[in-house]
Structures are given as C-alpha cells and as structure tokens.
C-alpha cells in the first residue's frame, strides 16, 4: 500500500552519517549532486559510484531500504535510459526502422542510469539518516542570510516541518478512507484512467476535508501555546560543526578533484 514507500523515511541510528551536522549533510549532498553531473568518462563515473557505495555503507541503514527507494523510480530510470539509447549521435551499430543504436547512445544510457541511481541513493541517504526536525532546522540555518532581504525563513522552515510531520498521518488517513470506500464497493483497482481518477474522488475529498480540519486544529494548538514566529526563539537542540564534518568536506573535495582530474586527462565519452 501507500505506506510501503521507503523514499524519504527516517531510520534512527548512530552511524557516522547520522552524527554529521545536518547542515554539512545538506551542503555535501548539493556538492555531490553537482559533481554527479560533471562526470564525462567511466573513471569519474566509477569514483562517483564508489563514493555513493561508501555513503551507503557508512549510513548503517540496511541496503534493502536503499533498494526500496530505487524501486519507486525504476520506471523513470527505464524510460530515460531507453530514450537516451536511441538518441545517440554517430554511426549506428544496430538499426531497425527509425530506431538506431550507436556507441554514443549506449554510453549515454549507461551514464544517465548510473547518475539517476546515484542521485536517488545519495538523496535518500540524507533523508534516511536525518530526522525531519534536524532537516528543517538545518535548512532554516542555511537560509538565514536571506532574512536580510525579508525572506520569511523561519516561517518557511516551520511550514516545512509541519508538512513533513503530517506525511505519515495523512498516509494513514488515506489508507483508512480507502478501506472505508472500498467497503462500500468503490472500485479503485480496475478500469481505464478516467474511471480510476473518478474513483479517487471519494478518497480525495474526505482527505482534503480532514487535512484542513487538522490544519485548523494545529493552528489553534500553536496559538494556545503562544506561538508568535521565530524572532528570539531558542532551539532545544543546537547543531554545531565538528571534526567529522570537516573530514566529510575533505572527502567531498577529494572526490571533486578526482573527477576534475579525470575530466582533464581522460577523453570524454558522452
């Protein structure tokens, strides 16, 4: 059911990656995502892949859950790689009608597949090892400079953490409402697309109603506790950078150097 989606779930733990400063993790992830798309030959791709595997091993989250997060996007991976396979330039090595496969196309397909996989694995590494509160806290701190231009940083962070907090609640609610409508004979698993979209209405309407109800409730509850925005609020858990964060930055820097060197000295294949 909907609850089986592993992508974005948090797994409490005490691994090295768990203990990194969430701000560091976000910056590392951004850096890593950029470098994934700066790989142009198989050596740099190998570096990136090894780095991803290292991250997974260090995260202490069972590999099974990493694979589960891939399962969600397998469809996207297949489509993009097949498209890339047929869109390569150069001499065809196989041709059937308008479909032609070139060496360049094969390379492109391999690259796009591995890039997407590394991208998803790295991102889910962040969400697996960082609790939603840590995550929003870190985002709030990282965006703090934007306050100078009157960007509502705290409000946005608060909205994010509230939204994240309600994801499991709403999933559970969806399950319940779906069961209730199925019990009244709603048919959600068959028929064409239009029929299926129509069949979703009995689920979506009660879901929206309850989401609004919960939003009002939480707003009231926050007001009852005198919530008044971010100015002068202190944090229960202070986050601070430590040695291991510095080491992780050094590791990323090494990777970036490696990839750049590869790009300089080895010819690109795509």
């Amino acid at each position, binding site marked *: 059911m909907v609850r089986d989606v592993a992508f974005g779930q948090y797994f409490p733990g005490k691994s090295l990656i768990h203990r990194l400063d969430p701000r560091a993790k976000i910056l590392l992830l951004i850096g890593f995502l950029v470098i994934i798309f700066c790989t142009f030959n198989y050596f740099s791709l190998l570096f990136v892949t090894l780095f991803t595997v290292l991250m997974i091993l260090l995260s202490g989250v069972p590999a099974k859950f990493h694979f589960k997060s891939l399962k969600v996007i397998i469809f996207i991976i297949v489509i993009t790689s097949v498209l890339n396979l047929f869109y390569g330039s150069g001499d065809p090595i196989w041709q059937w009608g308008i479909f032609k496969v070139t060496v360049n196309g094969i390379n492109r397909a391999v690259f796009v597949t591995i890039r997407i996989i590394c991208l998803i694995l790295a991102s889910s590494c962040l969400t697996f090892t960082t609790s939603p509160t840590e995550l929003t806290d870190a985002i709030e701190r990282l965006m703090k400079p934007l306050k100078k231009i009157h960007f509502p940083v705290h409000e946005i962070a608060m909205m994010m953490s509230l939204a994240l907090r309600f994801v499991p609640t709403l999933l559970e*609610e969806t399950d*319940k*409402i779906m*069961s*209730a*409508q*199925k*019990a*009244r*004979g*709603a*048919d959600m698993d068959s028929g064409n697309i239009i029929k299926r979209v129509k069949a979703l*209405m*009995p689920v979506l*309407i*009660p879901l929206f*109603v*309850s989401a609004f109800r919960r939003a009002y409730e939480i707003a009231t509850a926050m007001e009852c506790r005198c919530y008044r925005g971010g100015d002068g609020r202190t944090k229960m858990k202070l986050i601070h950078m430590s040695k291991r964060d510095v080491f992780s930055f050094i590791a990323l820097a090494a990777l970036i150097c490696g990839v750049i060197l590869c790009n300089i000295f080895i010819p690109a294949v795509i």
Partner: protein
Amino acid sequence: MSSVLELKNLSFVYGQKTPFEKRAVDNVSVSIEKGEFIGIIGHTGSGKSTLVQMLNGLIRPTEGQVLFDGEDIWQNPKEIRKIRFKVGMVFQYPEYQLFEETVYKDIAFGPSNMGKTAQEIDMAVRKAAEFTDLKPQLLQKSPFDLSGGEKRRAAIAGVIAMDPEVLVLDEPTAGLDPMGRDVLLTQIVQYHKKRKNTVLLVSHSMEDIARVADRIIVMNNSRLVMFDKTKEVFSHGRDLEKIGLKVPQITKIMLELKEKGYDVPDGILTVDEAFSAVSSLLKKEGKIW
C-alpha cells in the same frame, strides 16, 4: 441454523518477512450463525480491527480461510467486491468517509456501486435513512453541514443502504455523547430485529455489549480467548480483568456479592436482572416479604 460466517484458523501478519513483522491475528477459528448479534471485545491492539477487516476481504488473511455461506471469499479474488456488499463494514469514525454533495448521494454511493437501478437505489436510500432516523429534509443537505451525531448516522446509513447480510460495526458509538450513544445503539438493535440479519459489534463499552450481544468474541494479544454466550463470558469477570478488560458495573457488583458468600447467580448483565436476583435472595432470607 446455518453459519453465515466461518473463520478457519485465520491469521494475519503485518509486514511479513521484514524487521517490522507483527502477528496481528493468530489462528482464530469462529463460526457465526445467521441472525446472531455478536459482540467483539478486547483492549486496544488486541487484533479486533484487523480481524473484522478480514471478514469482508479488505485485507487478505496470510493463513486460514473466511467462509461466507460456506464458500471461501478469496476463492475468486476478482469477485471480492461482491463480498463487500454482503458483509457491510462500518469503520471507526465513519463520518470521515462522507464526500458527496448531498447526504442522499452519499448514502446512494454503496447501492450505485452495486449496479442497482435508480429506483432501487432510491428505495435503499430512503429505507436506510429511516433505519438510522435521518429526517427526509436532511437528505438534500450537504453532509458537511450536519451535526456530529447526524454525520455518524448518515455514514452508517451509507453501509446499511447496501442491505448487507452481515453488518460489522467498529466502535460505532465512539466519541458520541451518552444520549447519542444510547440512541444509536437502540437504532442498531431495532435494525437487527427488523432486518433479521447478522450484526457484529466491536466496542469498548462492556455495558453496551452486555445490553445487545447474544454471544461475545474476546480477543487478547492477537488470539481468541473466549467465544461464548454473553452471560458465560461476563461470569468470568476475574479472567477478563486479567487481560485488561472489565465487566459491566452491575455484573461486577453481583460478582463481588457472590465472592462475599451471597447466593446470587453468575453473569448478571442488567440492573433489572440484578434487582430480581437480590430481591429473591432477600425474600429467601426472610428480610422482605
């Protein structure tokens, strides 16, 4: 009498073969007769809700069978929807399932899914509204404009409108005021009497169960611990307390009288019964005439 629902060695495991594996229902075998009023009790997390969701095929048992009229409901998984019309299920807080523009349309959702004609649907809706005492003028209102109790009754009407052979209600009175509880319970009993179908009622209120049930299923720790006549079950007051359940207040008073050495019968369920038992005891002892 023939059994309308039969559960054979029914088990359900959540998250099978994952670290989160949890056995929610463990080897339950029960046979329910046509026309019975069954109460299901057990403390939170005892597996009641999982058990009832297997009765109409909302979840598929990991082991064992559910037989409806002697046939396995999962014999043909594509036909499982038909079972859902025969075994009507009212969830906890059913008012959160209301979605249509008018109460009428919402109650009609079930019957129209059954593929009935407009005329049959109209009949079904009006009958269901009558059973749950919804006034005809309410039918054209939006379900979101009703009061809490009315919403609850409208949602229950939505299930009754399918005219199920078996009606399962999961804590239908939760969150209602005492008056609303009594009224709703009475309506369910009236419905059961008129329609003469089978009703299963999950409840935390022992008083309610004692008032209405013929037999009681007691669940504890995913297992069936008792399945017997209401009187019998509530005469095991001490055993029920051990698994975190209570007996109705009046039953408890009589139980304690008995433990003090007074000669009163077991399993007294209502104040009236208690009154006649105590007064006959007093007569016997010559305290009153």
